[in-house]
């Protein structure tokens, strides 16, 4: 429970963080809220040589309404997302889901960018960002690039982020359809989702249904083709290959995906009025 030796640098700005990344490259890890990274280091499952702490880069913590999207700084904590009036009005799905992550301590430290960059498929917020068709803004030595969230996640703890790149902003378009729902089944209140489902209109994100956060594409297609909610939800697990773990078998996860997608679509439809 004591990590191996590492060097620590605190970045004063996003720019400095990017230049430190360029300097230390492959051996460095960005430390934001630390709620994923530090436990892994304490168990010695992650052993970065350098930690670049962006915890005080306040310029990366914001929620702004822009002309055609909502911009969320990567360092914005779950707690701030949960209690944002702007999100409550414009993206209640993200505010609500953020309030379901872990417990209050986790929500005060954990950040939206950390969760996305970590690439953990059991995290709630990445699937929400997928369902919202978000775009990820990334800074690197060669400048800034924008990556659609649908292309960001590659595998377990693996994203398209290069070792010298820093995720700085999440851009979320204003949803065309106002109905939303977040359905999360956990064993205990503070646990990770066994399965969770994020619904915005007829977009459906899946948590913990494979090696990356996913969209329920078969369900979405069925809805587009005019299927009923029940029929579309029955296809929620198509194309997924969820893990087996202590909490659940793949079969159970697939079943939960179908149930939770149906409940989510029904609730979203109800909210849409």
């Amino acid at each position, binding site marked *: 429970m004591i990590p191996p030796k590492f060097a620590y640098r605190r970045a004063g700005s996003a720019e400095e963080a990017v230049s430190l990344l360029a300097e230390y490259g492959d051996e460095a890890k960005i430390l934001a809220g630390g709620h994923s990274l530090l436990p892994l280091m304490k*168990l010695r499952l992650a052993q970065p040589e350098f930690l670049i702490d962006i915890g005080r880069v306040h310029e990366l913590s914001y929620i702004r309404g822009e002309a055609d999207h909502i911009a969320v700084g990567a360092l914005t904590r779950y707690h701030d997302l949960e209690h944002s009036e702007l999100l409550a009005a414009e993206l209640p799905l993200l505010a609500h889901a953020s309030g379901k992550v872990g417990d209050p301590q986790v929500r005060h430290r954990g950040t939206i960018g950390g969760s996305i960059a970590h690439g953990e498929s059991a995290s709630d917020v990445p699937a929400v960002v997928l369902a919202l068709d978000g775009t990820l803004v990334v800074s690197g030595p060669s400048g800034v690039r924008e990556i659609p969230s649908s292309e960001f996640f590659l595998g377990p703890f693996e994203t398209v982020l290069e070792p010298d790149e820093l995720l700085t902003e999440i851009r979320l378009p204003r949803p065309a359809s106002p109905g939303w729902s977040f359905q999360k089944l956990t064993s205990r209140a503070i646990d990770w989702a066994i399965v969770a489902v994020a619904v915005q209109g007829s977009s459906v994100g899946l948590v913990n249904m494979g090696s990356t956060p996913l969209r329920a594409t078969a369900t979405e297609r069925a809805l587009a083709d005019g299927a009923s909610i029940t029929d579309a939800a029955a296809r929620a697990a198509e194309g997924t290959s969820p893990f087996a773990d202590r909490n659940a078998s793949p079969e159970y996860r697939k079943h939960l995906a179908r149930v939770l997608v149906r409940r989510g679509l029904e609730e979203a439809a109800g909210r849409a009025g």
Partner: protein
Amino acid sequence: MSIVGTRVVRTEDPRLLTTGAQYLEDLRLPELQGAAYATFVRSPMAHARITGIDVSAALDEPGVVAVLTADDLDDIPESPPGREPLLAKDVVRFVGEPVAIVLTEEHYQGEDAAELVSVDYDELPAVVGVQQALTDETLLFPDKGTNVLSRGGAKEFDDEAFADCEVVVERTIVNQRVAAAPLEVRAAAARWADDRLTLWSSTQNVHGVRDELTGKLGLDKKAVRVIAPDVGGGFGAKIGADRETVVVGWAARRTGRPVRWVETRNENLMAMSQGRAQLHTITIGGSRDGRVQAYRLDIVQDCGGYVRMGGMLPHLTMLMASGVYDLPRVETAFRSVVTNTTPIGAYRGAGRPEATAAIERAMDLFAAEIGMDAAEVRRRNFVAPDKFPFTTPTGATYDTGEYAKALDTVLEAAGYDELRAEQRRRRERDDPIQLGIGVSAYVEITGGGPDAGETARVSVHPDGTVTVWTGSSPHGQGHATAWAMLVQDELGIPMDRITVRHGDTDVLTEGVGTFGSRSLQIGGTAVRNAAVEIKERARELAAEEMEADPADLVLDLESGTWTVRGVPGRGVPWAQLAERAGPEGLSADTTFATDQSTFPFGAHVAVVEVDMETGRPRLVRHVSVDDAGPVVNPILAEGQRHGGIAQGAAQALFEEVSYDEYGNPVTATLLDYTFISAAELPSFELVPMETPTSVNPLGVKGIGEAGTIGSTPAVQSAVVDALGHLGVRHIDMPASPERVWTAINEARTAQ
């Protein structure tokens, strides 16, 4: 008015909630200055032969003071063969078993250095689970020729016992392994000076720790002092000195330097004794009118890698097998097996919750088979109130009990009939959220036994204050409050002038400790008796002082003064008598012992909602009657019941220590070991009931484990009951969402 029985707020809490407790790792004592920090090198393998240990790289690491292995334990008595060693020598038998101790100048250097201790392991097949152990294909102790290291009870079962039963039900059920997981993990600190070992230990019983240290280190009793600072929970798993604690004491002598050690949570979940871990085969037979005629309990106890208490626990399970029921025939037997997993020890209830879980499941299965209400079947089989003292077929003699009254009281409080009506309505409309109602009735054994006394010293000082020393060292129970209340009640000295001390073998050289729900009835009685003794001595002193006949002296409990009967206005306060007694004041030492146990009992109703689509169960109500005799302080007793119910519900719904097929623990962090939190629990509905015992002068029984014993079967039963209309009869614990969903599916497929 007596303070006993009133809701006195815990006097411990202002300190605990403001400046905080002084747990072991908080100690900043001059005696521990310059201490080296201990880190244990632990086996990453469940079962392996050690072929070599190379410590040289670790010794070169900065800050390393020493690296010691089993080979260095040459100055103490050898562990008897087949017994758990202090450090593994030839073979490791569970993941997390200590192999070497690394001492470093600074705490943080320990893990880096421990990683550099190179241990060569020759991997052996791992034995995981009792079924595999029983095959004896791989032996943990080849010299023994079997993994079954002890057995007892019936040599052979008598099938005739069930021959004339109209209905016989048999089922194998799992009482899964759980972790004690106290918030304060294990910790110790040691100093060797002037040929004497002082050891600070996070323990439930300093005297037990001292006795283990003297035995294992070959020291004289007088050469060891054990001190317990504040202790943050134990639940049975902090009884006695674990091997790490002994090694810390030894290392302080070996290196001539104070040594301190605190384990990580990860280590705690791998190496602290765990609990339960029994496999039960239950057979129950009786008539269709609800009378049970015969009951059989066949136990396989998983001891883990070494026999700590795994040989003893099933004896308690067998003793309490028939529970609150008057059963004509009871047969029990057990086998204790070793497996390549964490050793099993005492855990809140220690053998008795397992007995209750088994008989209560059996009663439910029997009730379902004959189509009778679960509460009614219980009522038809209770030991009747006029039969006490009642000796069971397994040899326990219950002191007092009102089992039907406890059940009726809890059913009434729960609104049982209305709950059943609501259940019917939900079933009729095929509600997606079904209701389950679980009923349990229990009796347990606490307190007495041969050699199970407790010590106390009560001293009234010349300044009028009182110090109470107790041999029963608490770790959260509230002794400081309860003992002061008992003394105030006897002496009339207000409890804010009474200080309760504990946990130092140099002050009270003998004592037993806090476990097995024994403290109030044994330790509290010792305190009360010491106060009574002081009162009698004070009477003599007051008689001298006032030149009166001792028989005429009266202690006015309101003012705390002695007066002569019929002579108003003249009173001698305690301080004056203490001064008269001499510089030491008035002091009495007592030991209270009884070989008679007490048998607390009760009944619980749990109400669970099950989401029939996802299978997820949710405990929505928990109502309990827990009768442990007269209550000294309802706040303390309710606190014990709250914690007990929570831990018991946790076993039913969430907790399980598990291993993969290689014996790797997969629940060695608190992310994976899912203990319960307030968010998973309803507000408990506690119903009072007090049936005294005559075993001790306070009339009290133990309450520490009652909640755990009653709640587990009630909650488990409620989950099963929610699916009863589908034909589901049993779901093993923990009743996880997937297990419940699977049971629903299987039942629907079968229909």
